[in-house]
């Protein structure tokens, strides 16, 4: 068992609990759209989680920060087969040699996707996306018509495998506008369980799908496996109207919508001076 004494109660409460150790915490003024802000908010989502399947980019920063702050015991799993990574330097990609050296296990990709992922061991899958829609479908394939796309995106990679079997999915978006958060994605690479269920007669995936979307404006949550994304928190200086106005559907707003706590100066220092010292992802 990993050290996770702070059992997750659900919703957004852990995030707040994780940073209010004292009343006089030094908070940072980095803007909400900055990589530092987004990575800190994402890291707090990992409090209390055992096993995280991490991707490239902001998730790399978030898992590293979480390991140094809210969740030292979190087990990092990568699609390349690395289990229990203890990198001595920031990983540049999910196949970086620093993830392999000193890791707890190096599995075949069949064991990783077949046993660890499909076997139900992954608590949180951390994914990037070009688009996320109302019910939590993810597009990482194409913008426009797939037969002659306007933009060719990287495609699935492991994403459509991860969404089927990870207990839940956290997505970090670098922009918040109706193009990135449309009513319905241009192409569904990685489906919401709501969309999966419409395929009658199929063995249904066990994952709850996207439960959390962190954007430069706020945090959207999908607390119900069958439900839609709703506004749970706005970042400091952002209004609820700004978020709803920049979302591609009539976004439901929770009655108890919160303000995202700012990163601590220590979070920002760790990200800049100890984690991403070459500014690869802190752009």
């Amino acid at each position: 068992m990993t050290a996770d004494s702070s059992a997750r109660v659900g919703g957004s409460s852990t995030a707040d609990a994780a940073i209010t150790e004292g009343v006089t915490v030094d908070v940072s003024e980095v803007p909400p759209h900055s990589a530092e802000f987004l990575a800190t908010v994402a890291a707090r989502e990992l409090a209390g989680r055992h096993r995280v399947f991490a991707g490239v980019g902001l998730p790399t920063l978030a898992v590293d920060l979480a390991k140094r702050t809210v969740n030292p015991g979190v087990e990092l799993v990568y699609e390349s087969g690395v289990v229990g990574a203890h990198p001595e330097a920031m990983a540049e990609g999910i196949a970086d040699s620093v993830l392999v050296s000193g890791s707890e296990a190096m599995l075949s990709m069949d064991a990783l996707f077949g046993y660890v992922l499909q076997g139900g061991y992954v608590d949180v899958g951390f994914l990037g996306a070009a688009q996320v829609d109302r019910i939590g479908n993810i597009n990482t394939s194409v913008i426009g018509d797939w037969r002659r796309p306007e933009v060719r995106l990287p495609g699935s990679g492991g994403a459509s495998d991860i969404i089927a079997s990870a207990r839940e999915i956290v997505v970090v978006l670098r922009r918040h506008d109706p193009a990135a958060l449309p009513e319905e994605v241009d192409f569904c690479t990685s489906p919401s369980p709501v969309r999966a269920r419409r395929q009658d007669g199929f063995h249904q995936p066990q994952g709850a799908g996207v439960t959390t979307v962190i954007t430069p404006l706020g945090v959207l949550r999908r607390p119900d496996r069958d439900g839609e994304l709703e506004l749970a928190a706005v970042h400091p200086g952002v209004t609820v109207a700004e978020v709803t106005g920049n979302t591609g559907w009539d976004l439901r707003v929770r009655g108890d919508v919160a303000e995202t706590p700012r990163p601590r100066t220590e979070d920002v220092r760790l990200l800049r001076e100890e984690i991403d010292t070459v500014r690869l992802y802190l752009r």
Partner: protein
Amino acid sequence: MTGSKVTTLAEAVAAHVRDGMTVALEGFGHLIPFAAGHEIIRQRRRDLTMCRMTPDILTDQLLVAGCVSRLVASFFASGSAGSLYEIRRRVEQHDPAPLETEEYSHYGMYCRYEAGAKRLPFQPLLSYVGSDLPALNPRIRSVESPYGEGRVYVVPPLNPDVTIVHAQRADANGNTQLWGITGAQAPAAYAASAVIVTVEEVVAPETVRADPNRTLIPAHAVDAVVEVPGGAHPSYAQGCYDRDSAFYREWTPISRDRERALAWIDEWIHGTADHAGYLAKLGEQRWDGLRVAPAPSGSVSYGRRQG
């Protein structure tokens, strides 16, 4: 099978890779067989179907050089370093020609090699329910579970004409040992009609047999063994040298401009006689920056029966 299979890269590619073939060059971000791919460019092979989970810079280079007309893959970027612009030009603008693609998820692609290696008609997986990927790729199909669990998606076997992999070491017979990230190398090798293994070092059979658990591809599945030190550059070989991340960043502006990419192929591939020439051009200083400090595994004892 016994007897040395050691040959040169030029001979191995000439003997096993022909125009129009389906070739798998596997290695998941690690041990990518760049030297072998570059030799395919030098020998000006055409109309290949390229299979790679993550196409990586290697596929972009083979496309620029005009070797590939079809791509079977599961992630159309180079990992940490952004877009592969030759692939994007082909797909988005059909410039200079359209590229036929067949697209899966990572596990779907891996399961294709598995089915190929095991000579199964298909392999099931839990992915794709509700996804548009099966609409994009009609080769992703579904079957009713005969055990009453509902329909599941399946992928067809992938049996390359040739699979090429790079590894840390092999003996002359082809017993191939690799460690670190092992990707789809083993199933891709067993799925293929012919297998070329390039290695950092050809070692004595005793070295292999002192640690048999590390052999992922036994000699019986291997047709040619080629010693190519540095053969994974600009990717890496765990314990031997690190990834040339600077090159990965440099490739982005090169591939963005097709003329520049063509010039790069002329200068670095056609302009060098072989991989040793490519490494010499790269220079000692650059290589020094990729060296890694030793971190030996320790060792285990397999034991011998006494008496």
